[in-house]
Protein backbone atom coordinates (compact mmCIF):
# COMPACT_ATOMS: atom_id res chain seq x y z
CA UNK A 1 0.00 0.00 0.00
CA UNK A 2 1.20 3.46 -0.82
CA UNK A 3 1.98 5.46 2.29
CA UNK A 4 -0.27 8.55 2.06
CA UNK A 5 2.46 10.59 3.75
CA UNK A 6 4.99 10.04 0.98
CA UNK A 7 5.15 11.07 -2.67
CA UNK A 8 5.77 8.39 -5.29
CA UNK A 9 9.49 9.12 -5.23
CA UNK A 10 9.57 8.73 -1.45
CA UNK A 11 9.52 12.34 -0.31
CA UNK A 12 7.42 13.69 2.50
CA UNK A 13 4.00 14.91 1.29
CA UNK A 14 2.14 15.12 4.60
CA UNK A 15 3.20 14.43 8.16
CA UNK A 16 0.35 12.54 9.80
CA UNK A 17 2.01 9.94 12.02
CA UNK A 18 5.46 8.53 12.76
CA UNK A 19 4.05 5.02 12.70
CA UNK A 20 5.22 3.39 9.47
CA UNK A 21 7.47 6.24 8.43
CA UNK A 22 10.82 4.80 7.28
CA UNK A 23 13.93 5.29 9.38
CA UNK A 24 15.58 7.18 6.52
CA UNK A 25 12.88 9.87 6.60
CA UNK A 26 13.05 10.20 10.40
CA UNK A 27 16.83 10.54 10.26
CA UNK A 28 16.56 13.03 7.40
CA UNK A 29 14.19 15.24 9.39
CA UNK A 30 16.57 15.24 12.37
CA UNK A 31 19.54 15.99 10.10
CA UNK A 32 17.78 18.84 8.36
CA UNK A 33 16.67 20.30 11.70
CA UNK A 34 20.24 20.63 12.99
CA UNK A 35 21.32 23.71 11.01
CA UNK A 36 17.98 25.40 11.77
CA UNK A 37 18.86 25.62 15.47
CA UNK A 38 21.32 28.44 14.65
CA UNK A 39 18.88 30.76 12.94
CA UNK A 40 17.78 32.33 16.22
CA UNK A 41 21.29 33.71 16.76
CA UNK A 42 21.40 35.69 13.56
CA UNK A 43 20.78 39.33 12.86
CA UNK A 44 17.88 38.35 10.58
CA UNK A 45 16.17 35.32 12.12
CA UNK A 46 14.72 34.17 8.83
CA UNK A 47 15.35 31.76 6.00
CA UNK A 48 13.57 32.18 2.66
CA UNK A 49 12.42 28.57 2.20
CA UNK A 50 8.68 29.21 2.61
CA UNK A 51 8.63 32.72 1.20
CA UNK A 52 5.28 33.46 -0.40
CA UNK A 53 3.57 30.42 1.16
CA UNK A 54 0.57 30.62 3.42
CA UNK A 55 0.52 28.31 6.41
CA UNK A 56 -2.80 27.90 8.18
CA UNK A 57 -2.61 26.83 11.82
CA UNK A 58 -6.01 25.27 12.32
CA UNK A 59 -6.52 24.30 15.94
CA UNK A 60 -9.77 22.63 16.88
CA UNK A 61 -8.35 22.05 20.33
CA UNK A 62 -6.50 24.36 22.66
CA UNK A 63 -2.75 24.61 22.53
CA UNK A 64 -0.18 27.20 23.44
CA UNK A 65 3.24 25.64 23.04
CA UNK A 66 2.59 23.63 19.89
CA UNK A 67 0.69 26.36 18.09
CA UNK A 68 3.23 29.02 19.02
CA UNK A 69 6.26 26.97 18.04
CA UNK A 70 4.62 26.06 14.71
CA UNK A 71 3.95 29.74 14.18
CA UNK A 72 7.54 30.72 15.00
CA UNK A 73 8.88 27.93 12.79
CA UNK A 74 6.76 29.01 9.83
CA UNK A 75 7.68 32.66 10.32
CA UNK A 76 11.40 31.87 10.53
CA UNK A 77 10.95 30.20 7.15
CA UNK A 78 9.37 33.44 5.87
CA UNK A 79 5.87 32.01 5.44
CA UNK A 80 2.70 33.99 6.05
CA UNK A 81 1.00 32.43 9.04
CA UNK A 82 -2.71 32.52 9.70
CA UNK A 83 -3.87 31.23 13.08
CA UNK A 84 -7.38 29.91 13.45
CA UNK A 85 -8.78 28.92 16.74
CA UNK A 86 -11.68 26.99 15.33
CA UNK A 87 -13.04 25.92 18.68
CA UNK A 88 -14.28 29.49 18.99
CA UNK A 89 -15.44 30.02 15.42
CA UNK A 90 -17.39 28.48 12.55
CA UNK A 91 -17.62 24.88 13.73
CA UNK A 92 -19.37 26.08 16.81
CA UNK A 93 -21.86 27.60 14.36
CA UNK A 94 -22.30 24.19 12.73
CA UNK A 95 -19.83 24.20 9.82
CA UNK A 96 -18.23 20.84 9.03
CA UNK A 97 -14.47 20.30 9.12
CA UNK A 98 -14.22 19.86 5.35
CA UNK A 99 -16.30 22.96 4.66
CA UNK A 100 -13.97 24.94 6.88
CA UNK A 101 -11.00 23.49 5.00
CA UNK A 102 -12.50 24.23 1.58
CA UNK A 103 -12.95 27.82 2.60
CA UNK A 104 -9.35 28.08 3.76
CA UNK A 105 -8.18 26.54 0.47
CA UNK A 106 -10.19 29.22 -1.32
CA UNK A 107 -8.15 31.74 0.66
CA UNK A 108 -4.94 30.31 -0.81
CA UNK A 109 -3.61 27.90 1.80
CA UNK A 110 -0.39 26.05 0.94
CA UNK A 111 -0.08 24.09 4.16
CA UNK A 112 -2.33 23.12 7.03
CA UNK A 113 -1.09 22.55 10.56
CA UNK A 114 -3.99 20.88 12.27
CA UNK A 115 -4.92 19.81 15.75
CA UNK A 116 -8.17 18.00 16.35
CA UNK A 117 -9.77 16.12 19.22
CA UNK A 118 -10.78 13.29 16.90
CA UNK A 119 -8.19 10.67 15.96
CA UNK A 120 -7.77 10.57 12.20
CA UNK A 121 -9.02 14.07 11.40
CA UNK A 122 -5.75 15.04 9.61
CA UNK A 123 -6.05 11.85 7.49
CA UNK A 124 -9.54 12.87 6.50
CA UNK A 125 -8.17 16.26 5.50
CA UNK A 126 -5.31 14.74 3.46
CA UNK A 127 -7.73 12.37 1.71
CA UNK A 128 -10.10 15.19 0.97
CA UNK A 129 -7.31 17.29 -0.56
CA UNK A 130 -6.30 14.38 -2.77
CA UNK A 131 -9.87 13.61 -3.81
CA UNK A 132 -10.44 17.23 -4.78
CA UNK A 133 -7.20 17.52 -6.76
CA UNK A 134 -5.42 19.74 -4.26
CA UNK A 135 -2.58 17.36 -3.54
CA UNK A 136 -0.03 20.16 -3.55
CA UNK A 137 -1.39 21.36 -0.19
CA UNK A 138 0.37 19.62 2.71
CA UNK A 139 -1.02 18.63 6.06
CA UNK A 140 0.93 18.50 9.31
CA UNK A 141 -0.73 16.71 12.17
CA UNK A 142 -0.26 18.80 15.31
CA UNK A 143 -2.03 16.21 17.45
CA UNK A 144 -5.18 14.21 16.73
CA UNK A 145 -7.18 12.69 19.57
CA UNK A 146 -5.37 9.80 21.18
CA UNK A 147 -3.69 8.87 17.95
CA UNK A 148 -0.52 10.77 17.11
CA UNK A 149 1.52 13.91 17.69
CA UNK A 150 4.35 13.36 15.21
CA UNK A 151 6.26 16.63 15.60
CA UNK A 152 6.35 16.13 19.38
CA UNK A 153 7.77 12.65 18.81
CA UNK A 154 10.35 14.08 16.41
CA UNK A 155 11.47 16.87 18.72
CA UNK A 156 11.85 14.31 21.49
CA UNK A 157 14.04 12.22 19.18
CA UNK A 158 16.05 15.32 18.30
CA UNK A 159 16.52 16.05 22.00
CA UNK A 160 17.60 12.48 22.75
CA UNK A 161 20.02 12.47 19.85
CA UNK A 162 21.42 15.82 20.95
CA UNK A 163 22.28 14.51 24.42
CA UNK A 164 22.85 10.81 23.78
CA UNK A 165 23.97 10.65 20.11
CA UNK A 166 23.45 6.93 19.44
CA UNK A 167 19.92 5.48 19.67
CA UNK A 168 21.13 1.89 19.44
CA UNK A 169 22.68 1.84 22.93
CA UNK A 170 19.80 3.29 24.91
CA UNK A 171 17.21 2.11 27.35
CA UNK A 172 14.26 4.48 27.31
CA UNK A 173 11.28 4.57 29.65
CA UNK A 174 7.96 6.22 28.78
CA UNK A 175 6.15 6.94 32.02
CA UNK A 176 2.52 7.73 32.71
CA UNK A 177 -0.81 7.96 30.99
CA UNK A 178 -0.02 5.99 27.83
CA UNK A 179 -3.67 5.15 27.26
CA UNK A 180 -4.78 8.69 26.49
CA UNK A 181 -1.47 9.89 25.09
CA UNK A 182 -0.91 10.61 21.41
CA UNK A 183 2.58 11.75 22.42
CA UNK A 184 3.41 8.28 23.79
CA UNK A 185 2.30 6.58 20.58
CA UNK A 186 4.46 8.85 18.45
CA UNK A 187 7.42 8.50 20.80
CA UNK A 188 7.27 4.71 20.89
CA UNK A 189 6.93 4.47 17.10
CA UNK A 190 9.95 6.71 16.58
CA UNK A 191 12.10 5.05 19.25
CA UNK A 192 11.56 1.59 17.82
CA UNK A 193 12.09 2.74 14.23
CA UNK A 194 15.33 4.48 15.16
CA UNK A 195 16.64 1.27 16.70
CA UNK A 196 16.38 1.79 20.46
CA UNK A 197 16.91 -1.76 21.76
CA UNK A 198 14.78 -1.42 24.89
CA UNK A 199 11.70 0.76 25.21
CA UNK A 200 9.84 0.44 28.50
CA UNK A 201 6.49 1.79 29.47
CA UNK A 202 5.73 2.42 33.12
CA UNK A 203 2.11 2.94 34.12
CA UNK A 204 -0.74 1.52 36.14
CA UNK A 205 -2.84 -1.05 34.26
CA UNK A 206 -5.74 1.35 34.00
CA UNK A 207 -3.65 3.82 32.01
CA UNK A 208 -2.28 1.37 29.44
CA UNK A 209 -3.94 0.26 26.22
CA UNK A 210 -4.76 -3.46 26.34
CA UNK A 211 -2.50 -4.35 23.43
CA UNK A 212 0.44 -2.22 24.55
CA UNK A 213 2.99 -5.05 24.18
CA UNK A 214 2.28 -5.15 20.48
CA UNK A 215 4.04 -1.79 20.20
CA UNK A 216 7.32 -3.57 20.98
CA UNK A 217 7.73 -2.36 24.55
CA UNK A 218 8.43 -3.91 27.97
CA UNK A 219 5.70 -3.12 30.45
CA UNK A 220 6.33 -2.21 34.08
CA UNK A 221 3.69 -1.41 36.66
CA UNK A 222 6.27 -0.69 39.32
CA UNK A 223 8.10 2.55 38.65
CA UNK A 224 11.15 1.72 40.78
CA UNK A 225 11.73 -1.45 38.79
CA UNK A 226 11.08 0.19 35.46
CA UNK A 227 13.46 3.08 35.98
CA UNK A 228 16.46 0.92 36.85
CA UNK A 229 19.39 1.87 34.62
CA UNK A 230 17.41 3.81 32.02
CA UNK A 231 19.19 6.49 29.98
CA UNK A 232 16.14 8.49 29.06
CA UNK A 233 12.96 9.12 31.06
CA UNK A 234 10.08 10.42 28.97
CA UNK A 235 7.34 11.65 31.24
CA UNK A 236 3.76 12.03 30.07
CA UNK A 237 1.21 14.47 31.32
CA UNK A 238 -1.61 13.05 33.35
CA UNK A 239 -4.46 13.87 31.00
CA UNK A 240 -7.06 15.08 33.45
CA UNK A 241 -9.34 16.37 30.74
CA UNK A 242 -9.34 13.03 28.94
CA UNK A 243 -9.96 10.98 31.99
CA UNK A 244 -13.47 9.63 31.86
CA UNK A 245 -14.62 7.70 34.86
CA UNK A 246 -12.49 6.70 37.78
CA UNK A 247 -9.26 5.31 36.36
CA UNK A 248 -7.30 6.68 39.29
CA UNK A 249 -8.11 7.13 42.95
CA UNK A 250 -6.54 10.59 43.22
CA UNK A 251 -3.72 12.66 41.83
CA UNK A 252 -1.93 12.52 45.20
CA UNK A 253 -1.94 8.76 45.09
CA UNK A 254 -0.79 8.83 41.47
CA UNK A 255 2.15 11.02 42.48
CA UNK A 256 3.09 8.60 45.23
CA UNK A 257 3.41 5.67 42.82
CA UNK A 258 4.14 7.22 39.43
CA UNK A 259 5.35 10.75 40.10
CA UNK A 260 8.99 11.30 39.17
CA UNK A 261 10.93 12.34 42.27
CA UNK A 262 14.67 12.70 42.84
CA UNK A 263 14.62 9.42 44.79
CA UNK A 264 13.06 7.50 41.92
CA UNK A 265 15.25 9.22 39.33
CA UNK A 266 18.32 8.10 41.31
CA UNK A 267 17.53 4.54 40.12
CA UNK A 268 18.10 5.56 36.49
CA UNK A 269 21.54 6.01 34.95
CA UNK A 270 23.48 8.85 36.52
CA UNK A 271 23.46 10.92 33.34
CA UNK A 272 19.85 10.09 32.48
CA UNK A 273 17.86 12.87 30.84
CA UNK A 274 14.25 13.69 31.71
CA UNK A 275 11.83 14.83 29.03
CA UNK A 276 8.30 16.11 29.35
CA UNK A 277 6.09 17.32 26.49
CA UNK A 278 4.40 19.98 28.64
CA UNK A 279 2.31 21.34 30.10
CA UNK A 280 3.61 19.85 33.34
CA UNK A 281 1.47 19.05 36.32
CA UNK A 282 3.99 19.67 39.08
CA UNK A 283 3.34 17.43 42.03
CA UNK A 284 1.23 15.05 39.94
CA UNK A 285 3.48 13.30 37.42
CA UNK A 286 6.69 15.18 38.17
CA UNK A 287 8.21 16.76 41.25
CA UNK A 288 9.45 20.34 40.96
CA UNK A 289 12.91 19.29 42.13
CA UNK A 290 13.20 17.03 39.07
CA UNK A 291 11.48 19.41 36.64
CA UNK A 292 13.95 22.15 37.56
CA UNK A 293 16.88 19.79 38.20
CA UNK A 294 20.10 19.08 36.33
CA UNK A 295 18.74 16.05 34.46
CA UNK A 296 15.73 17.83 32.98
CA UNK A 297 15.93 18.86 29.32
CA UNK A 298 12.36 20.09 29.17
CA UNK A 299 13.09 23.65 28.03
CA UNK A 300 15.66 22.62 25.39
CA UNK A 301 12.89 20.36 24.03
CA UNK A 302 10.81 23.45 23.34
CA UNK A 303 13.67 25.21 21.57
CA UNK A 304 14.53 22.15 19.48
CA UNK A 305 10.83 21.87 18.64
CA UNK A 306 11.07 25.02 16.54
CA UNK A 307 13.98 23.66 14.47
CA UNK A 308 12.27 20.29 14.00
CA UNK A 309 9.04 21.94 12.85
CA UNK A 310 11.06 24.12 10.46
CA UNK A 311 12.61 20.95 9.04
CA UNK A 312 9.24 19.26 8.56
CA UNK A 313 7.66 22.29 6.91
CA UNK A 314 10.58 22.92 4.56
CA UNK A 315 10.67 19.26 3.54
CA UNK A 316 6.94 19.36 2.83
CA UNK A 317 7.35 22.51 0.77
CA UNK A 318 10.17 20.85 -1.17
CA UNK A 319 8.29 17.58 -1.61
CA UNK A 320 5.15 19.19 -2.98
Amino acid at each position, binding site marked *: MLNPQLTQDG*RLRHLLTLDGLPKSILA*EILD*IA*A*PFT*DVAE*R*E*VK*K*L*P*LLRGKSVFNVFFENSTRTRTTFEIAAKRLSADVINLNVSTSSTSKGETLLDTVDNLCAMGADMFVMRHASSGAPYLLAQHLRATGRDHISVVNAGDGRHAHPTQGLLDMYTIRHYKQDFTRLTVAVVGDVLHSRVARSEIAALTTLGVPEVRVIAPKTLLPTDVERMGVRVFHNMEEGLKGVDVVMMLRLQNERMQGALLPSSQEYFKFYGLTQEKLALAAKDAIVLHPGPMNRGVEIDSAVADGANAVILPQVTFGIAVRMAVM*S*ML*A*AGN
Partner: protein
Amino acid sequence: MNLPDANQLRDLLVEQIRAAIKPETLIIGIHSGGAWVAEYLHRQLGVATPLGTLDVAFYRDDYASRGLHKSRKSTIPVDIEGRDVILVDDVLYSGRTTRAALNEIFDYGRPARVDLAVLIDRGGRQLPIAARFCAHVLAAPLPPESKLSLQRDDAGNFSLEVKSA
Protein backbone atom coordinates in the same frame (compact mmCIF):
# COMPACT_ATOMS: atom_id res chain seq x y z
CA MET B 1 39.24 18.06 -22.31
CA ASN B 2 42.37 19.48 -20.73
CA LEU B 3 41.74 21.06 -17.40
CA PRO B 4 44.29 23.25 -15.66
CA ASP B 5 46.14 22.03 -12.57
CA ALA B 6 43.97 23.02 -9.60
CA ASN B 7 46.97 23.25 -7.25
CA GLN B 8 48.52 25.88 -9.52
CA LEU B 9 45.22 27.72 -9.74
CA ARG B 10 44.88 28.00 -5.98
CA ASP B 11 48.37 29.53 -5.72
CA LEU B 12 47.54 31.96 -8.52
CA LEU B 13 44.43 32.93 -6.59
CA VAL B 14 46.49 33.52 -3.44
CA GLU B 15 48.68 36.01 -5.32
CA GLN B 16 45.68 37.77 -6.88
CA ILE B 17 44.03 38.29 -3.52
CA ARG B 18 47.08 39.15 -1.42
CA ALA B 19 46.96 42.92 -1.98
CA ALA B 20 43.27 43.09 -1.04
CA ILE B 21 43.67 41.45 2.37
CA LYS B 22 43.37 43.62 5.48
CA PRO B 23 43.52 42.36 9.07
CA GLU B 24 39.74 42.70 9.33
CA THR B 25 38.96 40.92 6.06
CA LEU B 26 36.60 37.98 6.47
CA ILE B 27 37.02 35.05 4.10
CA ILE B 28 33.90 32.92 3.61
CA GLY B 29 33.92 29.66 1.67
CA ILE B 30 30.84 28.05 0.12
CA HIS B 31 30.38 24.33 0.91
CA SER B 32 32.03 22.15 -0.04
CA GLY B 33 34.63 22.95 -2.74
CA GLY B 34 34.58 26.66 -2.00
CA ALA B 35 35.26 25.95 1.67
CA TRP B 36 38.36 23.92 0.73
CA VAL B 37 39.67 26.77 -1.42
CA ALA B 38 38.85 29.30 1.31
CA GLU B 39 40.69 27.19 3.88
CA TYR B 40 43.79 27.19 1.67
CA LEU B 41 43.63 30.93 0.99
CA HIS B 42 43.09 31.65 4.67
CA ARG B 43 46.16 29.65 5.63
CA GLN B 44 48.46 30.89 2.85
CA LEU B 45 47.53 34.52 3.37
CA GLY B 46 47.78 34.29 7.16
CA VAL B 47 44.44 36.04 7.63
CA ALA B 48 43.86 37.01 11.27
CA THR B 49 40.05 36.84 11.20
CA PRO B 50 38.73 33.28 11.55
CA LEU B 51 37.34 31.58 8.47
CA GLY B 52 33.61 31.50 7.70
CA THR B 53 31.69 28.84 5.79
CA LEU B 54 28.25 28.88 4.17
CA ASP B 55 25.92 26.14 3.06
CA VAL B 56 23.55 27.99 0.78
CA ALA B 57 21.08 25.10 0.36
CA PHE B 58 18.38 27.00 2.25
CA TYR B 59 18.80 30.05 0.02
CA ARG B 60 18.82 28.46 -3.40
CA ASP B 61 15.97 29.24 -5.78
CA ASP B 62 15.89 25.60 -6.88
CA TYR B 63 15.88 23.91 -3.47
CA ALA B 64 12.56 22.24 -4.22
CA SER B 65 14.07 20.23 -7.09
CA ARG B 66 17.44 19.63 -5.39
CA GLY B 67 16.02 18.74 -2.00
CA LEU B 68 17.57 19.68 1.31
CA HIS B 69 19.89 16.72 1.82
CA LYS B 70 23.37 17.10 3.17
CA SER B 71 22.92 20.68 4.26
CA ARG B 72 25.44 21.75 6.85
CA LYS B 73 25.63 24.51 9.36
CA SER B 74 26.77 27.87 8.12
CA THR B 75 29.40 29.41 10.38
CA ILE B 76 30.10 33.11 10.44
CA PRO B 77 32.48 33.40 13.42
CA VAL B 78 32.62 37.23 13.61
CA ASP B 79 30.25 40.16 13.27
CA ILE B 80 29.82 40.82 9.57
CA GLU B 81 28.63 44.40 10.05
CA GLY B 82 30.86 46.86 8.20
CA ARG B 83 33.45 44.24 7.25
CA ASP B 84 35.20 43.50 3.93
CA VAL B 85 34.23 40.01 2.85
CA ILE B 86 35.84 37.77 0.27
CA LEU B 87 33.39 35.13 -0.80
CA VAL B 88 35.12 32.04 -2.17
CA ASP B 89 33.78 29.31 -4.44
CA ASP B 90 35.49 26.65 -6.51
CA VAL B 91 33.58 26.90 -9.79
CA LEU B 92 31.63 29.90 -11.08
CA TYR B 93 28.80 28.88 -13.39
CA SER B 94 25.23 30.23 -13.46
CA GLY B 95 25.80 32.67 -10.60
CA ARG B 96 22.85 31.27 -8.63
CA THR B 97 25.02 29.93 -5.83
CA THR B 98 26.65 33.34 -5.48
CA ARG B 99 23.25 35.03 -5.43
CA ALA B 100 22.11 32.63 -2.68
CA ALA B 101 25.32 33.23 -0.70
CA LEU B 102 24.91 37.01 -0.92
CA ASN B 103 21.36 36.74 0.41
CA GLU B 104 22.52 34.58 3.28
CA ILE B 105 25.43 36.91 4.12
CA PHE B 106 23.06 39.87 4.37
CA ASP B 107 20.93 37.94 6.86
CA TYR B 108 23.92 38.05 9.19
CA GLY B 109 24.44 41.79 8.82
CA ARG B 110 25.56 44.48 6.39
CA PRO B 111 29.13 44.04 5.12
CA ALA B 112 31.09 47.04 3.80
CA ARG B 113 31.86 45.17 0.58
CA VAL B 114 31.79 41.66 -0.81
CA ASP B 115 34.21 40.40 -3.47
CA LEU B 116 33.95 37.09 -5.20
CA ALA B 117 36.99 34.83 -5.63
CA VAL B 118 36.82 31.62 -7.68
CA LEU B 119 39.25 29.01 -8.84
CA ILE B 120 37.70 28.61 -12.26
CA ASP B 121 34.99 30.26 -14.36
CA ARG B 122 33.23 27.79 -16.64
CA GLY B 123 30.96 30.36 -18.35
CA GLY B 124 27.19 30.04 -18.73
CA ARG B 125 26.12 32.85 -16.40
CA GLN B 126 22.38 33.29 -15.84
CA LEU B 127 22.71 36.28 -13.51
CA PRO B 128 24.70 39.52 -13.62
CA ILE B 129 27.52 38.26 -11.41
CA ALA B 130 31.28 38.51 -11.97
CA ALA B 131 34.30 37.41 -9.93
CA ARG B 132 36.84 40.06 -8.92
CA PHE B 133 39.44 37.31 -8.40
CA CYS B 134 39.51 34.36 -10.78
CA ALA B 135 42.46 32.05 -11.40
CA HIS B 136 41.24 30.67 -14.71
CA VAL B 137 38.53 31.25 -17.30
CA LEU B 138 37.67 28.36 -19.62
CA ALA B 139 38.23 29.44 -23.24
CA ALA B 140 34.85 28.02 -24.29
CA PRO B 141 31.93 27.62 -21.86
CA LEU B 142 31.17 24.06 -20.83
CA PRO B 143 27.87 22.66 -22.10
CA PRO B 144 25.09 22.61 -19.46
CA GLU B 145 25.05 18.80 -19.15
CA SER B 146 28.67 18.79 -17.96
CA LYS B 147 29.43 18.98 -14.29
CA LEU B 148 32.73 20.55 -13.32
CA SER B 149 33.76 19.97 -9.72
CA LEU B 150 36.73 20.26 -7.43
CA GLN B 151 38.16 17.21 -5.64
CA ARG B 152 40.49 17.14 -2.67
CA ASP B 153 42.56 14.09 -1.77
CA ASP B 154 43.74 13.07 1.71
CA ALA B 155 47.02 14.92 1.25
CA GLY B 156 45.07 18.12 0.57
CA ASN B 157 45.85 18.24 -3.17
CA PHE B 158 43.22 19.71 -5.45
CA SER B 159 42.11 18.44 -8.83
CA LEU B 160 39.33 19.35 -11.25
CA GLU B 161 36.98 16.83 -12.77
CA VAL B 162 34.42 17.04 -15.57
CA LYS B 163 31.55 14.62 -15.76
CA SER B 164 29.02 14.52 -18.56
CA ALA B 165 25.54 13.43 -17.63
